[in-house]
């Protein structure tokens, strides 16, 4: 199982989560194939972060099952945690450590041997363009640098499945490119990347398999071509799926641009 490219990397059954009155995730069933670049797309508030948090064991679901590489996330956390890497959105890192210290710390918590951590950390810092800032405290990093050091920490133990929540949000084009390169190399080796985003162009250019989430439910899933269907772009297909098309708000702004100011 795992990297053979045939079985499911992640299997989700009947996943529910309520926060008080509000239903954040309303019964998700999803089977994510392994060895691919997977996009989890949806508008803000669709339940992407809640879903990813439950899938990675950070948030306990109200009901439902999640299996990663054949292991149940909530019954066999030990088998799952060593196989996944996570870059959550909106959660802090230990920011009073320097970039390198953070990697060393994470590696030691994961039980990796010291010199292996050192070697991997050096390479990751190099590839992600953080070598020059490795001794700076993470609290002084920019958004792009934070995402990159978070990615490095998530990759350090060479996981089978990598979950990234909005990895490109607020990231400059140069950092985004270095993140892309690392991820493409990683999936080329047979690993699975699941990432959430609401930028359709990005998903279209990176992913081969897409799940569309809106209102806490899966609206469509399948290969990029299947989800896109007849539509010209993923963006069009997406707007149609979440029912947000034809909301043009043009005529009230007729004064905008040109003419008398």
């Amino acid at each position, binding site marked *: 199982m795992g990297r053979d490219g045939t079985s499911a990397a992640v299997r989700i059954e009947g996943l529910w989560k309520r926060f008080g009155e509000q239903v954040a995730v309303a019964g998700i069933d999803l089977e994510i194939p392994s060895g691919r670049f997977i996009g989890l797309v949806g508008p803000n508030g669709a339940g992407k972060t809640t879903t990813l948090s439950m899938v990675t064991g950070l948030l306990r679901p109200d009901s439902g099952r999640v299996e990663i590489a054949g292991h149940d996330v909530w019954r066999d956390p030990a088998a799952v945690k060593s196989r996944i890497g996570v870059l959550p959105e909106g959660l802090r890192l*230990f920011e009073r450590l320097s970039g390198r210290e953070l990697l060393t710390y994470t590696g030691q918590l994961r*039980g990796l041997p010291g010199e292996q951590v050192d070697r991997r950390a050096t390479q990751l810092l190099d590839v992600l363009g953080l070598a020059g800032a490795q001794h*700076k405290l993470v609290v002084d990093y920019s958004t792009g640098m934070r995402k990159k050091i978070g990615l490095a920490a998530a990759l350090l133990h060479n996981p089978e499945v990598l979950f990234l929540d909005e990895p490109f949000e607020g990231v400059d084009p140069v950092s985004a490119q270095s993140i892309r390169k690392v991820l493409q190399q990683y999936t080329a080796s047979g690993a699975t990347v699941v990432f959430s985003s609401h930028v359709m162009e990005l998903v279209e250019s990176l992913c081969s398999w897409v799940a569309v989430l809106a209102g806490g439910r899966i609206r469509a899933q399948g290969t990029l071509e299947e989800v896109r269907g007849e539509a010209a772009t993923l963006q069009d297909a997406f707007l149609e799926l979440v029912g947000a098309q034809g909301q043009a708000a043009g005529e009230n702004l007729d004064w905008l641009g040109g003419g008398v100011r």
Partner: protein
Amino acid sequence: MSTTANASATKASGASLTPVFIRLKLSLLRNGLRQSSKRKAVWITSIVFTALYAALQLLGLIVLRGHPHVAALTVLLAVVLAVGWAFVPLFFPSGDETMDPTRLAMLPLRPGPLTVSLLAASLVGIGPAFTLVLAVGSVIATAHGGAAFAVGVPAVALTLLTCVALARAVATANVRLLSSRKGRDLALLSGLVIAVGIQVANYGLQKLSNAGGMARLEPFAKVLRWVPPGSAMDAVRSTGQGSYGLAAAQLALSAAVLALLLWWWQRGLTKVLTSPDSSTLAAAEPERKRVSTGLARLLPQGRTGAVMLRSLRYVLRDPKTRMTWTSQLVIGALVPFLNVARHNGNSYWAFMAVAMVGGQMYNLFGTDGSAFWLVMQTINGPRDAYLELRGRALAFALPAVPYLVLLVTALTAFTGHWDTLPEVLGLGLALLGAMFATGAVTSALLPYAVPQGNAFKNVGPGQTSIAWLGLLGGLLAASAQCVPLVLLTVWLHTSGHHGWLPLLLPLGFGYGLLAAWTGLRIAAPRLARRLPEVLAAVAKA
């Protein structure tokens, strides 16, 4: 409101700008009422308390009218007010949104008119009203004769303007620091500074209320009556005594310093509005190589060492953790010593320090905040949870145990009862161990968030009862665990077996170790089961 402000400001010339800024300030004040009901209550309470406090001060100053040394008091008061104004923006950088000139950088405004309008807007608010009341009270206390009251008017105006301009100028000159991470770290120290300030003020007030206390102010006043805005206040007294020349000189000095402040502020504004902001500069800053402390090599390998090193680094680098440690260690030592000195007490007061230091164990994951997700991703079961808890406990013990040994030894030396050293130290170590044990359990069962950016909040929203439950329950449980040892001590004392008392030191040490180990063992499986709940609790801030 902000849109109106923007729209008006775009067309602004000097004259139209002032009302815009005053309206903006009034809106910000009014918006204090538009928050959640809890914050609204806090906001209204703070206003009522400030008003009451100001009224009491005013009353006090009126009562003191005619006191031979009251002029010295008013001069000191004016200078203390000004110093307070200078520090407030450093400690509460986000307190007044109009204080931050970088917010105005995108608007087409000239520094000259901007200075005038911002100064006018600064006069609106609770702080300026409080200052105004005290300044008016000072004039009532010291003015004798019509001329003196007349001089009081410019004196009050100069005092108020100097205070406000000083705050603005200091904030503007330090805006780069204040909007940077170091500035925010600095602001977190304000709790400590204010706590110490209250102690000093308390001590000073006690001295003053003694008979003839106010006469002690005279030597200070002799200097301060030439330091604005103290000089403006003293001009009222000078006029009352007929020294018109002196009064004129004092007023002129105050006015000159005010002009200088305004000039400094305007220069700062120009610089701030035309240079890159702190985040850009910080990103471009060349990095300094961090030298390893060598501590890493001394600590054990694997998870234990990693956890200890991270915890100890946070004691040194995280401003909030550092402040907690410093204040606990200082207060934990100060209180026993003061009590021993005052009441001729014994070294058992050291238990106070044990409780203070051990109390920090009661919410081990709170300071991690949402970063706890990184830890929980690596905890695969009770074994990892045990190692995590043990690493954190060891990181606590590393400074706490030597501190306790030193403190008890010093207290014993102070009291001279060397025979009590083994039992006090033994019982202290046992209590510390028991607190480590209960702390590990409450950390797993009753975790709560510790807000990072706020010096005065140590508990996340809606978690106060959890925090108290954990602390009180934990303290009771830890004390209960020590009962056998305490009974043994009492028995040894009452039955005359004094020769056996030194045995309490190794016994207490062993007992503490055993208690801590048992507590960690009990807490570990519970922590491993409750990881998502712990994360949800500590990430709440």
